């Protein structure tokens, strides 16, 4: 299978457009965290690689977008999801290192809806702002806060707070 066109993200000398590289290096750590929150650790690396390829192939259009971060997150998210991704497998709590964290936290997080899990994990877990989460999810801040509120309430019902 041969290519018939040069990816638009490639410079004339064949190297990657510096704007593409800058965008992706800025985006990649957060993309990794957001994908982890959405679908768990499986396939995150592959999804990020494919997203970068997609960015290179259509760089001009993506760079001109108003919210390229959100677009690329949704592209990456689609790479990871499928029927088997509805309930992701999150790594278990390492109880020997974090005895104050209940082992029930990981499965309870996995049972949340994807948007609830993403909002809870990124806001409470990794310190993302509402605006940053909304940008990735392509929605409004109030919607993100609603996802967060419902998610955290579900978690509180299931596992609550523990003595630590």
């Amino acid at each position, binding site marked *: *299978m*041969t*290519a*018939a*066109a040069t*990816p638009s993200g490639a410079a004339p000398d064949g190297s990657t457009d510096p704007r593409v590289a800058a965008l992706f290096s800025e985006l990649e*750590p*957060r993309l*990794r*965290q957001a994908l*982890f929150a959405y679908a768990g*650790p499986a396939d995150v690396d592959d999804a990020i690689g*494919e997203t970068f*390829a*997609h960015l*290179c*192939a*259509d760089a001009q*259009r*993506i760079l001109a977008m108003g919210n390229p971060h959100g677009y690329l997150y*949704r592209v990456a998210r*689609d790479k990871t*999801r*499928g*029927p088997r991704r*509805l309930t992701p497998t*999150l*790594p278990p*709590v*390492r109880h020997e*290192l*974090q005895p*104050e*964290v*209940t082992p029930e*936290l*990981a499965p309870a*997080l996995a049972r949340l809806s994807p948007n609830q899990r993403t909002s*809870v*994990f990124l*806001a*409470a*877990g*990794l*310190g*993302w*702002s509402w605006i940053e989460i909304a940008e990735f999810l392509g929605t409004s801040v109030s919607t993100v*806060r609603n996802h*967060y*509120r419902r998610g*955290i*309430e579900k*978690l*509180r019902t299931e*596992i*609550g*707070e*523990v*003595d*630590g």
Partner: protein
Amino acid sequence: MITLEDQIRRYATDVAGPAVGEPPADLLQVTRPHHRGRWALVAALALFIAGLAYVATSSHDSSSPAVTTPETTPPLVVPPQVTSAVSTEQACVINEQTTVTRPERSVVAFSGPNGDGLCVSFEVFEANAYGFSSQGPEEPDPALLARLFADVPQVEVPTLVTVIDGNEGGQLQVSACQASWVQEHPLGVISFGVAFATASPGTEFVRFDTDQGPLYAQAADVPGLDGLRVALIRIPSLAGQPLAEPRMTALDADLRPLAPPTSTTLAPGCNPLSSAQSSPALVDDGIGDSHPLPNSG
């Protein structure tokens, strides 16, 4: 006592890297709304209801006895206006002069404001390379579908859309005319040469993995076809015979556009390209831009 938020933070930073900042300042307020505001809302609502009841009572007292007429409740949901039709004839008009009938295959001709000429060829499914078979219009057993996809892990379709991979020859499985569930069940079908996959609302794109790499097709609404949502790709083999040149309008494994086809691979009696001419957004080159399907000549 360690709070739930603290537990989440410790767990998340352990499994997903360092936190990028402090949690939003109003994190706790999101989950613990001000009860004062809630009571104010309840009070305002009670006042509104009381006022409404007063107005209703006073207007009832002042009005003369009226003749009671049976009220007709308007329908809550307005049925959509039919803008297109699906012919049940076993024929498709390739052009204005030629009508081709395919007795061995169910050929559905669409007509409508923008769907004129779109012709989708369906063939009753017999068996495919994965041993799945369906002899009639009944909906396939979900367990059977699950087993099918367990055997075909490379077929991944996002957003809960199920696309049944065709066999290696690209034969088509179902007759849309005979199997009404096709139009309701989120099931995709793959055709000869040009592949159609019906997709549910919300599906952004469909991925087909072939031995030559994944093919991507953007799902698109066909204007004027009552919500028919299709994904169009070209598959690189036809009836088990590999084509000289892989042909697809989607992207290959490296997400690079391929050369347009050089000769026709369409099943006789079906000319879906004519619809692409009238609805240029039908075909997508992957996940992003839409463009008309290249004429296969």
